[in-house]
């Protein structure tokens, strides 16, 4: 059952925000449970930096001296017996020490790999979780699990959940935007199911902004038409729609009219969004990119611009962390493409006073084995690292610990559901009550298994 004032909030948000659904159907389609915040919100938006491919925790945020000692020696069988491996299944298992050195940073002295020198400067602002674990050992299902909390394809992604709960603040841009970049390693494919709205209404799906061509599909007025003629067309369509609405009494007409107006605003807003002339030289240098070049750095800059414009959930994929071989150089290359821009994003948000109400998450869909796969590492689901920064996050924190070889978790395991619960909590939503009725069940982002907010990393 829902509370009527919450209901009203949701309806009005979904109407003034982007997109809507037939109202009669909205109620028929499962919105029987309550959305909208019930807790004090720490942040208004999320920028999720998905390091796709599975960054090695052992070369980024989780230094294991013992693994270096055992470099080249057989992995103790006590660790690996009966465990699921991906490509290493049935192969000889030897330890491989960290391929890069680590240093301690900030007052907190967090150990961070030397391949991430810029992120390291933010050591006292970030909370590193070294005890993440997941269920799926292959990219596609692992992303699905990280995004939806389920291994069954077709469930809503976290961005859609957040948009469902909070609506959009933007009057002319989608509330959930996805950006992708590639480089530094095998570019594993990414499916658009990763930003699907699943059983949630379609207007909550992520909208992928393209780095080439029109940033949003069909956002450009067709050749031979001008902004004025397009406006005139839309006005004409809306006037006619209003008339037919009177004839048919179809309540969808009002929404349709709004969506056409919104579409027109979007046609103007998107070019404005992509007009980087207003960025200072210093900003561009800080990110280290040519705006619009499709790089992760350019996407970070765009993420900030989207955040400024009220976009609720911004997810960046960088496809380049799948280092089965040549990890020493490979991961350094990928890190270089990501490190400076991530750091710039944090700095930029902070300078603009936006870091306080933004949650930034950095991490992949799984980690990598302490065992060598040639001169690389295989997929690993027993442990990996992510970091969070922004509003409500206790900077300079390290949460959780892996065993001495970085294989399993020694202390404070954190599941994907826990990460989701924390994310919702920071946005002001009680993850246990935040549900949507589908297939006869009150579905949750955090699923049916127990989950808990990671209190230790909260400020």
């Amino acid at each position, binding site marked *: 059952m829902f509370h*009527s004032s919450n209901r009203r909030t949701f309806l009005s948000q979904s109407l003034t925000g982007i997109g809507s659904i037939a*109202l009669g159907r909205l109620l028929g389609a499962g919105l029987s449970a309550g959305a909208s915040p019930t807790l004090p919100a720490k942040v208004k938006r999320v920028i999720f930096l998905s390091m796709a491919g599975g960054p090695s925790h052992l070369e980024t945020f989780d230094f294991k001296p013992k693994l270096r000692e055992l470099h080249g020696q057989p992995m103790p069988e006590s660790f690996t017996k009966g465990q699921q491996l991906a490509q290493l299944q049935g192969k000889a298992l030897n330890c491989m020490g960290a391929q890069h050195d680590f240093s301690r940073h900030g007052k907190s002295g967090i150990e961070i790999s030397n391949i991430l020198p810029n992120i390291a400067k933010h050591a006292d602002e970030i909370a590193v979780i070294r005890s993440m674990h997941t269920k799926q050992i292959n990219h*596609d299902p692992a992303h699905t699990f990280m995004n939806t909390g389920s291994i069954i394809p077709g469930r809503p992604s976290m961005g859609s959940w957040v948009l469902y709960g909070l609506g959009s603040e933007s009057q002319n841009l989608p509330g959930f935007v996805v950006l992708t970049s590639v480089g530094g390693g095998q570019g594993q494919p990414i499916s658009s*199911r990763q930003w699907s709205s699943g059983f949630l209404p379609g207007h909550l799906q992520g909208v992928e902004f393209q780095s080439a061509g029109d940033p949003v599909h069909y956002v450009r007025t*067709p050749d031979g*038409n001008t902004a004025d003629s397009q406006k005139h067309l839309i006005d004409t369509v809306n006037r006619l729609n209003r008339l037919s609405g009177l004839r048919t009494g179809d309540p969808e*007409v009002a*929404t349709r009219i709004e969506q056409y107006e919104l579409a027109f605003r979007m*046609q103007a807003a998107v070019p404005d969004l992509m007009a980087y002339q207003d960025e200072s030289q210093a900003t561009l240098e800080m990110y280290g990119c040519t705006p619009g070049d499709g790089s992760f750095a350019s996407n970070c800059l765009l993420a900030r611009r989207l955040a400024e414009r009220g976009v609720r959930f911004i997810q960046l994929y960088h496809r380049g962390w799948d280092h089965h071989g040549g990890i020493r150089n490979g991961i350094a290359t990928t890190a270089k493409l990501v490190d400076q821009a991530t750091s710039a994003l944090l700095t930029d948000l902070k300078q603009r006073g936006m870091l306080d109400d933004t949650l930034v998450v950095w991490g992949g869909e799984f980690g990598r084995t302490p065992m060598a796969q040639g001169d690389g590492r295989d997929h690993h689901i027993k442990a990996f690292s992510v970091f969070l920064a922004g509003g409500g996050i206790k900077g300079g924190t390290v949460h959780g610990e892996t065993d001495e070889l970085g294989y399993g978790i020694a202390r404070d395991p954190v599941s994907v559901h826990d990460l989701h619960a924390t994310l919702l909590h920071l946005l002001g939503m009680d993850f246990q009550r935040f549900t949507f009725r589908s297939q006869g069940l009150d579905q949750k982002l955090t699923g049916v298994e127990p989950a808990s907010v990671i209190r230790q990393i909260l400020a």
Partner: protein
Amino acid sequence: MNRLSFMFSRWLIAWILVLPLSAASDIKYGRDIRPILSDKCFFCHGTDPETREEDLRLDIREEAIAGRAFVPGNPEKSRLIKLINATDEDDIMPPPESHKVLTRKEKQLLYDWIKSGAEYELHWAYVAPKRDGGETIDSLVAKELQSRDLEISPVADPVTLLRRLHFDVTGLPPSREETSTFLQMHASDPEAALVQLVEKLLASPHFGERMAVSWLDGVRYADTVGYHGDKERSASPYRDYVIESFNSDKSFDQFTIEQIAGDLLPDAALSQKVAASYLRLNQISEEGGIQDAEYLAKYQAERVRTTSSAWLGSTLACAECHDHKFDPFTAKDFYSFAAFFSDILEKGAWNGDGRYQEDPEKWVKQGMAFDEWGPLLRVPTKEQAVRLEEIEGLIGKLRGERDSIVVEGVAVDAWISQQKAMLGDRSPQDFPLVDETLPEPVNIDGGVLVDVGGGPVQSGTHSRKQEGDGLVQHIIALKNAVAVHEGDVFYLWVHLDPAKPTRGLMLQANVAGDWGHRAYWGEAVIPYGKEQGGTAYHHAGELPEAGKWLRLSIPAAALGLVAGEMIGQIACTQVGGLIHWDNVGLHTSHPEKRYRHLSAEVVAMLKAEKPDVEKLAGFYRQSTPEWKRITSEIGNLESEHAALLKAVPSVPATVSATPRPIRLLNRGDWQDQTGPLVEPATPGFLTGSNDASGSRPTRLDLAKWMVSRENPLTARVFVNRLWARLFGTGLSKDTGDLGMQGEYPNHPELLDWLAVEFMENGWSVKHLMRVILLSKTYQQSSVSTPELLEIDPQNRLLARQSQLRLPAELIRDHALAVSGLLNPMIGGPSVKPYQPAKYYRNLNFPQREYQQDRGVLLYRRGIYTHWQRTFLHPMLKAFDAPAREECSTERAYSNTPLQALNLLNDPTFTEAARVMAARLLSEPEGAEDLVRRAWMLCLSRPPSAEESQILGEFHAKELQRLTESPDEAMKVLSIGEMKVPNEIPPVQLAAAASLARAILNLHETITRY
């Protein structure tokens, strides 16, 4: 906020707060009580022993009473009533941590129910449907309405009815001729006109296409494998089977049996085997590093989910990890259901690591084809089948002709002497590497062969043309690498065009991947190898004289080639101009090369003291022009056969092999092999024993059980979904779940009436459609009154029809149909219409560019659009078509700015507008009365005066704008591939296109009223 929608949302809120439930006097367990218990209590006091608290079950009356939950007839003494009203946090039920709260109304219902005796009923959907005689759809709907002092709305106006029927039955709008014919008939005899229209539409071949849209969602039909690289996998014959089945009104029970077990039917027809490919349309993976067993477990679970959801409307999927929390499905039911499918020959990992459960050799020997996704069935079209058979006949005939070639003894002797002489000769000879007459033609990358008619030819029938302003290079890969011998000299024949001079030309040889063997003539303008110099950039001389064939030669040693090195590729390069190149080869005295046309065996025979003349005659026979001609013809036919076979659409084949053992997986964990083995069985509570014979039940048994009259679900699920499509909402709202967490139907009697009607009439889908379409309930107006909207915003009472936005495919079809672009062909491989560039850039393994189709294939119905699971066509996606990764039983009807952008700016729609404009202007009336005619074409009704005026003003303004900037008009006309007659003045055409664009964007255009 828009005022209208604001008011509307206020209505809704008001309505929700006063939602009238049933009267307390008439409490039904299934409708009123069980939903409360199921939602609020069963999680801890229901079917699943793992989560059961205090060993108390409320789902079974006896146990609830034994557990002292309540005393029938005495609510005051019932513990349940005390606990739901408790104030202490430790006592209250449901407990606070469950976040479930009972409303006052629900508490009252529970109280009243216990007071009236706390009777239970079986769950409505688990009891076979039955009906009383004498009722009809309309009588049942009227009964419910009368009880609320309501009645159905008046019949819709004829144009609305016509369009509604068209969209619901064929999915295509009525043409102007169809509209006027219908209206005429309707004016004299409305009933007859409607009956005739319904019959005509049900008989249309487009009926199957319309029906297939939802069916394909349910069975997750798509053109790609879904996981990871999401490669293509042909399956279109399955889609066509579905269309054809609906068109031929195949009975739904047979339709079901064929899809679940078509391959197991005795003497199964090809179409029945195609039907069974349903079982292999699931997502599959070839990601590196995946494990066979894990993915087999995924596939088996998906089949259970999709089959139980698509046919049974059950959430059996929930029992994968634990017994179902709400329905009586056990985890054992889940795995027993999965065991039905364990005979399907397949692998889990399609990356090369997976294993079939049985050696596929057996089926290979039977002629079964296999590709990278396992066994497949080729399903040629009629034309393809005819041509294949024709080719096979011709090949047979040619082989016969060739076998009958006779050679004269004299000729054989002459040939033998000639060959012997050649063997004895030691002088060097030309050994062509590149020549069209070679028995093993080489692959020429980008080459253009010209024959004597098209340019100069030095020898044989063709030369190779290279032309360009800058650097032009053709790479020729030799089928077999050729060894270099001592003293070999390269020769090449070139003909330089005097009118188009060249600056330099180069010959390159590739040895074991190294291209560093080059000789060039003329200027040093070709960059390759220039830095290296030496034999990597040998200057062989000046350019030959233009205008005639000249032979250039250069010792192989000058290119740094050493005897014994193997040449794998040759490259011919030039900068600028036009050169015809003919044979390139080695001038060599090495004996083997000179008699390459003879096999070692023949050479040995020729050298023998007493040659075996009979055998040599056989070889001679094969060297005669007649033999070569026929052989080459056979070769051509064989290539055509192979190419045709490759183009023949296929489906993944369902092949029944030795069943894999299926275990109950504890908590769904595929690595846990400690669970018991299970045999195939249908869910225990839905049947008694379905196993009479004692042998292992098969998929055929499962299918027959699904469509048996005793199965309470299958017919109800189908009619409920059809109802949802025709009225907007199912009679039981959750069309994917008729289980205990589903909704108690608003019209339970009607749902059962329809299910029985369906089964009693031979599961005829057309009959079911006809009965619904001809009912008053269906034909009533969809225009609501404010009062009705307030009482019943979701139209559950059926006092009116519903207003439904068209599904994605139909929105496309409509624009194509009214413009005249629509290609009405039924079936065939999926097609690729316009799509934004780079949309697939996040795909990999392999990376790919979308290859848009050309010509008439651009204008096929939406149902034929290539269904890329990971990146569904943006238009389909924007209008809520599902990715079809899994079964989906219902589509959302969202209303978003992306849809507006799509209709406004997608070239599919702007082109349709342009072509529609040309269509109108090409008609005898020309530009006269254009607004009204365009409107009629799209909406089947004349515009009102006000509508005419608004649109007329817009058209006039566009005409003015485009007259002032005719360049813009040309740009409007350049969108899309379809050419339109160029007699129409561009400005006039472009302005009419704007007019058409406005109409195509109307809400009314994309809505079925």
